[in-house]
């Protein structure tokens, strides 16, 4: 795919990978789609990479626009497919296989890397203009004034979503709407597989352990808590009352716990107080587990501030610990009494 560097100013041997202009197109192949699905499921998360450097899309000339992107396949592919029919250059920064926004937050999609890529690819020799279109969500890592000072290139921030690029190119400006980040049901849905995959290992351990210690209903409760916290919570996020993720999680977890509480009450003939105590256990444990998973979803959202999340941690982690701790104590006590034959 790659061809030797054609610009004479590009010093160094052809073997220098940065000294190559590669070509790409706007087609998303089946292999690309499979790669996207694997990325969404978190399979080999850091391996969905594109070679950093300069790419041609179509047949660009010295006046063609230059777009910056990350070397994460999903980022690169959405950009090139959105530019179908356009002739352009794509400057791929080395973000270690991480998307634009997250990499900008870490600084890998940043001023230094952008300036470095502009220089190492000899971009100023390839295009006659001095303008580079950077995705708006890259702005937390890029200082436009500094890029201009150091490289001579003027940063123009493109729209948040690549699909708005054709309109942006036509009118030369992004509307207010194009500048606002959303968090649609679809945006939330595509994040759920990774959330689920993350919880699976501790989940499986808990399911097996509880199967032997407390029976199949308890195992089922673990599965319910994980699905509620990692799939239902992201999907229902805007519809659950309260603003804090922890309280949203407690509410959703409480609802998820009700069937398990009822299962104890309507269970085998046991003394009334044992039934009540048994029913209280899921009501005490499931809500904080879901709340914890919910709180951890903050990092995947598009709007939670660090100040707010920190406040949530200090406010609710003690509550979660107290609730689940009490639930475990009661559960263990009931188990011990049962083993001793007292109930």
């Amino acid at each position, binding site marked *: 795919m790659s061809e030797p560097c054609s610009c004479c100013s590009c010093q160094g041997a052809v073997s220098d990978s940065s000294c190559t202009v590669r070509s790409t197109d706007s087609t998303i192949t089946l292999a690309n789609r499979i790669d996207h699905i694997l990325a969404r499921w978190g399979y080999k998360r*850091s391996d969905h990479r594109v070679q950093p450097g300069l790419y041609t899309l179509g047949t660009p000339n010295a006046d063609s626009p230059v777009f910056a992107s990350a070397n994460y396949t*999903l980022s690169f592919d959405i950009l090139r497919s959105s530019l179908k029919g356009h002739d352009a250059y794509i400057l791929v920064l080395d973000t270690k296989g991480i998307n634009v926004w997250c990499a900008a937050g870490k600084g890998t999609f940043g001023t230094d890397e952008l300036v470095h890529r502009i220089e190492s690819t000899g971009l100023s020799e390839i295009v006659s203009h001095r303008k580079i279109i950077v995705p708006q969500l890259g702005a*937390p890592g890029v200082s436009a004034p500094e890029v201009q000072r150091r490289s001579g290139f003027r940063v123009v921030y493109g729209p948040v979503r690549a699909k708005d690029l054709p309109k942006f190119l036509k009118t030369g400006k992004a509307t207010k709407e194009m500048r606002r980040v959303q968090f649609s049901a679809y945006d939330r849905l595509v994040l759920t597989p990774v*959330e689920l995959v993350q919880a699976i290992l501790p989940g499986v351990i808990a399911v097996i352990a509880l199967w032997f210690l407390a029976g199949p209903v308890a195992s089922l409760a673990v599965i319910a808590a994980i699905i509620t916290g990692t799939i239902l919570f992201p999907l229902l996020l805007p519809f659950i009352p309260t603003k*804090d993720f922890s309280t949203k999680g407690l509410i959703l977890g409480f609802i998820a716990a009700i069937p398990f509480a009822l299962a104890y009450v309507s269970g085998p003939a046991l003394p009334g107080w044992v039934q009540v105590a048994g029913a209280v256990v899921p009501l005490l444990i499931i809500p904080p587990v879901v709340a914890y998973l919910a709180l951890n979803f903050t990092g995947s959202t598009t709007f939670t*501030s*660090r100040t707010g999340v920190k406040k949530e941690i200090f*406010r609710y982690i003690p509550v979660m610990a107290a609730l689940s701790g009490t639930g475990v104590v009661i559960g263990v006590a009931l188990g011990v009494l049962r083993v001793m034959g007292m109930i």
Partner: protein
Amino acid sequence: MFNSYTENTLQYHQERCINCKRCTEVCPHGVFEEGEKAAILKNKTRCMECGACALNCPVQAIEVQSGVGCAWAMIGAAIRGKDMDSGECSCGGDSGSCCGD
């Protein structure tokens, strides 16, 4: 009640603004709005402290302690005995769910 997101570290010194409109361009939450002579801080509570406005402001009219609002990273840092603010978002790593796309 049950809203930890009413305050944040965003500070705007309007008297320094040269009305270059960069902040309105980069903010993904419409926190700043274009004004006649200077940008207007319109929706402060919507700020997620990403730091884009402060970094792109050529005259340092905006200050914000930027960072990623990710409980996973902060709890992880706290458990390892590190400063919570040093907690790095783990997206792209072998584990960690921080960040969408």
